[in-house]
C-alpha cells in the first residue's frame, strides 16, 4: 500500500512502540479480574432465579416513580417543544426567533442527560423532581429539533392557500401546518416516551429518582437476584411500550 519502504517500516515500528506503551500504561490487576469474573458470573446466574418478592415494595415503588417521571416529563417536554419547534422552523419564524430557538435546542442536545441530572440533583436535591426536570429538558432538544425539520419540509402551497383566505396566524398554524405534521408529532412523542422511560432507569444512578436508585442499592448490597428482577421488569416494560408505539404509529398515517 505505502510505496516508500522507509515510511512503511517506520509506521510499523511506530505502531509497535505505541502499543507497547499503551498496554504497559494499563495497570491490570489479574488476580482482581479473576475474582471479578466469579462475581460477574454470579450476577448472570442470578437471572435464572430473579427475586421479585424480598424487595417487592422497593421495586414497585421505584418502577412507579419511574413511570410517573416518564409521563410527566414527556407531557411537559412536548408542551414546551411545540412552540420552540414553531420558532425553530426557518419557514415560519423571523430570523431572531429562529436563532434563539435553535440555540435552546443546541444547548439541550449538547448536554447529556446524566450531566444535566447531576446538575439538577445539585440544585433540587435527590429525588424524582431532578429527574423530571432533566428528562423534560432532554425531550425539548429531541422533539423540537425533529418537529422543526418536519415543519420545514411541509408542502408550502397548502399553507399558502390557508393564508390567502384571510386566516390569522394561529388559524394558519392550526389549518395549514398542524395537519401536515401531526403524524410525525405523534410518532416522535411516543418514541420519546420510550426513551424517557429507559433514561429514567439510568438517572437513579446519580440520585435523580426512579427505579435506577433501587437498582443501584441492590448492586451495592450484592443482591444480584433482586437486581436481576429489576432489570427484567425494565425490559418487559420497554418491550410493552415498543409494541404499543408500533400499533399507534401504524394507525395515525
Amino acid at each position, binding site marked *: 500500500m505505502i510505496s516508500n519502504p522507509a515510511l512503511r517500516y517506520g509506521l510499523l515500528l511506530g505502531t509497535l512502540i505505541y502499543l507497547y506503551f499503551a498496554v504497559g500504561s494499563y495497570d491490570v490487576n489479574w488476580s482482581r479480574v479473576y475474582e471479578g469474573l466469579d462475581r460477574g458470573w454470579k450476577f448472570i446466574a442470578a437471572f435464572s432465579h430473579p427475586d421479585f418478592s424480598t424487595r417487592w415494595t422497593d421495586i414497585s415503588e421505584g418502577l412507579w416513580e419511574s413511570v410517573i417521571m416518564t409521563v410527566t416529563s414527556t407531557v411537559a417536554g412536548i408542551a414546551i417543544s411545540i412552540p420552540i419547534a414553531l420558532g425553530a422552523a426557518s419557514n415560519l419564524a423571523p430570523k431572531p426567533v429562529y436563532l434563539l430557538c435553535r440555540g435552546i435546542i443546541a444547548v439541550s442536545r449538547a448536554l447529556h442527560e446524566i450531566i444535566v441530572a447531576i446538575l439538577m440533583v445539585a440544585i433540587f436535591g435527590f429525588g424524582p423532581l431532578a429527574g423530571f426536570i432533566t428528562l423534560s429538558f432532554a425531550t425539548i432538544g429531541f422533539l423540537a429539533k425533529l418537529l422543526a425539520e418536519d415543519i420545514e419540509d411541509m408542502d408550502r402551497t397548502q399553507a399558502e392557500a390557508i393564508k*390567502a383566505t384571510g386566516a390569522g396566524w394561529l388559524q394558519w398554524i*392550526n389549518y395549514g401546518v398542524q395537519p401536515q405534521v401531526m403524524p410525525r408529532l405523534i410518532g416522535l412523542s411516543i418514541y420519546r416516551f420510550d426513551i424517557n422511560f429507559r433514561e429514567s432507569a439510568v438517572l437513579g444512578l446519580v440520585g435523580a429518582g426512579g427505579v435506577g436508585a433501587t437498582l443501584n442499592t441492590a448492586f451495592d448490597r450484592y443482591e444480584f437476584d433482586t437486581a436481576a428482577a429489576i432489570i427484567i421488569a425494565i425490559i418487559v416494560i420497554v418491550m410493552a411500550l415498543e409494541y404499543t408505539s408500533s400499533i399507534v404509529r401504524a394507525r395515525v398515517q
Partner: protein
Amino acid sequence: MLNLEKLSKTYGTGDQALTDVTLEIPDGQVMGLIGPSGAGKSTLIRCINRLVEPTSGRVILNEVEIQTVGSRELRKQRRHMGMIFQEYALVERLSVMENVLSGRLGYVGFWSSYFRRFPQKAVDEAFRLLERVGLDHMVDKRADELSGGQRQRVGIARALLQDPTILLVDEPTASLDPKTSRQIMRLICELCAERNLSAIINIHDVALAQMFVQRIVGLQEGQVVYDGSPDQMSPDVLTQIYGEEDWEATIETVDDEDEDDSDTTT
C-alpha cells in the same frame, strides 16, 4: 373593481418579475392572463393579495388600497379575494368539509375555528356550494382521497365560501386532463357570471382561454404586451408574447362542443 397601478416586483435575487403593470378589471369581468413560464403571471396575482409583497405600485380593490393596510386589515381584505391554485392546495389530511370551511377562516375567531364551530349559516352555505360543484356526496371524505378534478372543485368551493368579489386563479387546469380542464374552466366562468365576480385566470392553454374568457392580457418578462379581446388574438400577437413559432394551429381550433358534466369517478 380592481385597479393595478404601475405594479412592480423585484425579488431579493435581483430578478425583475413585474415592471409597471397597469390594469383595470371591472366587476364581473373574467380576464385570462397568458404568457410564457417565468413571465410573472403567478407573481402578479400573488402581489394582489400580498402573498408576495410588491416592490412598488398600487393595488386598489373596491377603493381600498391594499398595499398600505396593516396586517389586521389585510386579513379582512383577503376575504374579498378568493384564490384557486394549480395543484389545488387543499390541506390533504383534512376532510372536504374542513377544507371548504377553511374559506371562512377570515370571518371567525381562533377558538371557534379550532373547535370547528363555524356559524350555521357558513355551514349551510358550504353544503350549498359543494352541491353546486357536484360534490355533496363527498363531504366527509379526506381531501387526499379525491381525484384531480374533484380536488379542484373543492378548491373552488373554498374560494367561493369567502364570499369574494374577485377570484385569483393560478393555472387551474395545468394538472388536469383536457376534458376535466374544460369542465373546471366552465364551472369557474359560470360561477363568476352567477355571482357577478371578476376573475384573473393565469392560464397556459391559449385555446382554452379563448373559449371561456372575455378579455386576454399577455405578459412577457413582467410587462403587459397585449390587452384585448380573445377574438383579436393572432399569430402575430402570440409571437409577440411567446416568441417565434408556428401559431396557426393553436388558435381557435377547439369548438366548445357539449359534453356531459360529471367527472366524478366514484
